């Protein structure tokens, strides 16, 4: 039986997208047909941001990997909204549902392959 995909959801309250970001995660998991084990972590200061390599709120860590590597030069700090360059060529505060569902599927396949 496939294990749930471990997801760490990093956010900072300074950025208003964190609730929508969690709803998006649930919707993407449903779209991808993948069950998740989600750990929610609030990033409260810059030291923690550096420790977690946090490039803005929200950040999705799927089975230990960030599926949306930020461009070079993006500040690592707690009080920042993350920029998502989406596959539809738009920029915004969240990935698209399709992009996140694809990332979940990729991470799930990777972890299932590793445990097979």
């Amino acid at each position, binding site marked *: 039986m496939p294990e749930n995909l471990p997801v760490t959801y990093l956010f900072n309250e*300074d*950025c*208003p997208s964190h609730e929508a970001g969690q709803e998006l995660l649930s919707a993407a998991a449903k779209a991808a047909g993948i069950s998740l084990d989600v750990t929610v972590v609030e990033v409260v200061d810059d030291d923690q941001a550096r420790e977690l390599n946090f490039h*803005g709120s929200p950040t999705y860590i799927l089975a230990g990997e960030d599926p949306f590597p930020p461009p070079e*030069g993006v*500040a690592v*700090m707690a*009080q*920042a*909204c*993350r*920029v*998502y360059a989406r596959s539809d060529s*738009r*920029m*915004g*505060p969240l990935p698209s549902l399709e992009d996140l569902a694809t990332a979940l599927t990729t991470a799930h396949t990777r972890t299932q392959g590793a445990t097979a």
Partner: protein
Amino acid sequence: MSLPIGAPAPTFSLPAVEGTASLDQLTDKNAVVVAFSCNHCPYVMAWEGRMNDIARDYADKGVAMVAINANNEATHPADSYDKMVERANEKGFVFAYARDESQEVAKAYAAERTPEFYVLDGDRKVAYHGSLDDNTEPELATTAFLRDALDAVLEGKTPATTETAAVGCTIKWKK
């Protein structure tokens, strides 16, 4: 606490991507949009195309838009003046894009986020304060707050909605 509806707009004169952006130079305009904005924020990125559309659509109606970036460039280098020039040229901004290095203008307007919009009427009093519309995704937006406010002001009326929550990144203050 935000600048109240009906309050006189604080004046300003700031270095802009092209020349100077000054409220006193806009006395011939029927309305002015003051938008607190920046380069780095994804909410600005999501809305800046619509900002440009509004500035273009309302220019012939005597409306000027001034976007003001007050962010601390020490913590957010993407918001420096040089980066503003690059962004304005890359995106073809048709509105003025000004730098509030001292952050005094942002404080005078009690601005908190980017993007955050103020519509000033012909008397330069605040007629609307808040968001451009109700969704970062243009196809999902149902209420065009900023356009509705401008239409009302240009007709000499009070906007049906005068205040909405500004949704975006916090202004990055100097410590």
